[in-house]
């Protein structure tokens, strides 16, 4: 009965102060639109300088292979000097140089060397460009061999099978990750800021001198924000599938349960922050520092966790988003793979219990 009253009070507060509704519904839409379109690791039409020092039929056929590529767009340059200048000005990301003896060497037993220079500043992009150039090169070799009527003598060929994301679209893994990041923000912001304000204004202590128990206060806060947060989550999933065309292979009820667990963890984290911080400046600072930034960098959203040094890998276990992102990427792209979902869900249960329990303990202590 008391709990119902608390929940009602909280809902009224939410309705009167539109900022919570804005956090829960406007933020996911805005951020997902901006990031879903903006964050992509797929390079297309990367400009590359193509220098043929002695243009002839061979260099022309090589250039032709580049023009057909979706990933690279070649810019013909008369010499290396122009190409280097273009590279320094960022007009091209790579230089491909066919030396003047290219044709002659091609017909020698050793073969010709094609010089490829990539701009290494963005190492990831450089590696992708390198891969694209290799792709064009091997296609060109095949078509050359076909045109010459001799079989292409490649001892071992690689046949690639990419599972779950056969087109290798980075959006398919970035959008589920973004959902986790956005939910982290929403969960932490809703509770961290809203509750820190109550502490700062003293209304929390006023609430605590009434007969309601701390457990009731916490549950009374959790339920409305949980409902708000799940609304935002549903909106995000609809946008991911409807707008960005990310497949959802897993079942909805698993998604619902996993999201609930994660949201409880995020809300618990926010509560703990607000209880410990007691003022909005510290709570806001802490919310960005311990929720958003780790969720962005330490969660496997973009950066592969298994490539991190061991001590940093240990730290990533404390980042709740890590578990949620593993579940989301699997649920969206692969389906209900229990060996992935169950351990990660168990970790979320532990974390939710830990944060909520600690928030409760800290709130009690503070009244002494």
């Amino acid at each position, binding site marked *: 009965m008391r709990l119902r009253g608390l929940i009602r009070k909280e809902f009224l507060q939410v309705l009167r102060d539109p900022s919570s509704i*804005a*956090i829960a519904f406007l*933020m996911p839409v805005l951020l997902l639109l*901006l990031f879903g*379109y*903006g*964050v*992509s*690791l*797929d390079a*297309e039409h*990367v400009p590359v300088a193509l220098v043929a020092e002695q243009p002839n039929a061979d260099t022309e056929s090589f250039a032709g292979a580049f023009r057909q590529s979706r990933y690279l767009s070649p810019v013909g340059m008369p010499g290396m000097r122009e190409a280097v200048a273009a590279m320094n000005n960022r007009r091209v990301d790579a230089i491909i140089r066919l030396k003047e003896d290219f044709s002659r060497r091609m017909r020698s*037993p050793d*073969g010709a060397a*094609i*010089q*490829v220079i*990539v701009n290494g*500043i963005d*190492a*990831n*992009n*450089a590696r992708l460009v390198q891969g694209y*150039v*290799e792709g064009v090169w091997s296609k060109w*070799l095949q078509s050359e061999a076909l045109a010459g009527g001799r079989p292409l*003598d490649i*001892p*071992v*060929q*690689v046949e*690639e*099978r*990419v*599972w*779950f*994301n056969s087109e290798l679209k*980075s959006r*398919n*893994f970035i959008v589920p990750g973004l959902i986790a990041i956005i939910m982290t923000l929403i969960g932490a912001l809703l509770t961290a800021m809203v509750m820190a*304000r109550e502490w700062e204004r003293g209304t929390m202590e006023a609430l605590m001198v009434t007969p309601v128990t701390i457990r009731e206060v916490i549950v009374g806060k959790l339920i409305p924000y949980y409902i708000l947060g799940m609304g935002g989550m549903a909106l995000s999933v609809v946008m991911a599938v409807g707008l960005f065309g990310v497949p959802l292979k897993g079942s909805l009820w698993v998604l619902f349960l996993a999201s609930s667990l994660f949201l409880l963890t995020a809300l618990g984290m926010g509560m703990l922050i607000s209880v410990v911080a*007691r*003022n909005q400046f*510290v709570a*806001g*600072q*802490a919310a*960005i*520092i311990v929720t*958003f930034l780790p969720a962005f*960098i330490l969660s*496997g959203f*973009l*950066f*592969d966790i298994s490539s*991190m040094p061991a*001590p940093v890998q240990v*730290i990533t276990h404390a980042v709740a988003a890590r578990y949620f992102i593993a579940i989301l*990427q699997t649920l969206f792209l692969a389906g209900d793979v229990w060996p*992935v979902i169950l351990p990660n869900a168990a970790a979320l249960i532990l974390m939710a219990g830990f944060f909520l329990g600690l928030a409760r303990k800290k709130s009690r202590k503070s009244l002494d």
Partner: protein
Amino acid sequence: MAKRIFSLMIKEFLAILLDKKSRVVVFVPPIIQVLVFGYAATFDLKNITYAIYNEDSSALSRELEAGFKGSTHFQEVARIRRHDQIAPMIDRRDALLVLHIGPEFSRDLTTGRPAVVQVIVDGRNSNTALLALNYVKTVITAFNNDFAARNGRAGPPARLETRAWFNPNLESRWFIVPGIVGLLLLVVTILVTALSVAREREQGTFDQLLVTPFRPVEILIGKALPGFIIGIAEATVIILITVFWFRVPLQGSVATLYAGVVLFLFSSVGVGLMISSLSVTQQQGLLGAFLFVVPAIILSGFTTPIANMPHLIRQITYLNPMRYFMIIIRGIFLEGTPFSMLLGQFWPLAAIGLFNMVLAGWMFRRRLY
């Protein structure tokens, strides 16, 4: 005037630093974060986990396997005996990829037919999958070249010789760590300034400040300086860590670097004060700070290239001070870009800062709630 501004600045510093918790959250996390994120934020694949399904136990297929075993990029986690073991291996993320060498491998190879190695890769993270496939091809190409040379078979008529400029070993840490400098500076300065006016508005002391002889310009400068000074101090510490701990080469001049830092702080303090002058409560200030900081980081080219963004979003990034700072700091660190070539990045930062400062000063008096 200078004295009045100075006393206002001292008061602002006290508001931030008097509380022990505030002191801690302003100074400690950025330093911890640059260390942790510096190690974590890398696109380089170190341990590509793979399982081998070799149906052809010949010397040749073992030689191919040895190429993967000998590579520092690969780590064998399992050997598979049956076809139906492949799917669980990938599904459970036990291995990122499975190498399947068919029973005809050595026969094809010795009879001159192309031998096929099937590579099944987990595409859940497409970037990792793509890079892993490139590494696989590198190992196989090395095997091919070796095999062709030994058996007197003609190699391909042309081969690629690839080099990378500015970052010869393609370490993505060199790219990311200077970016983290910008990321942390932005977070700290925006948070420090975004609440400065809002806090006083909420407590009602801003009205008192407005009726004192202070002119809005003086209030503005007094509010801007603490964020600026804290930013310079943190920038120095983080840059020292970048250079001496992470050993990212600093090719350009320190003076140009600081010119960039100062302009970037000017623009982000400006944005912070603008957010603050628009907010009546601290909560609105924080919300505004979040709504600016999060997109500013994600759409800055910090992790994913701006060139990959659609046209409209690319246009939006021109309003983002982080965008310019990323180009400045990476250029100075890795390429040694001189001051004159960075002017095109410097002036937008100055313009963003100036515009927001003027707007904030104007809002001080206009926005009475």
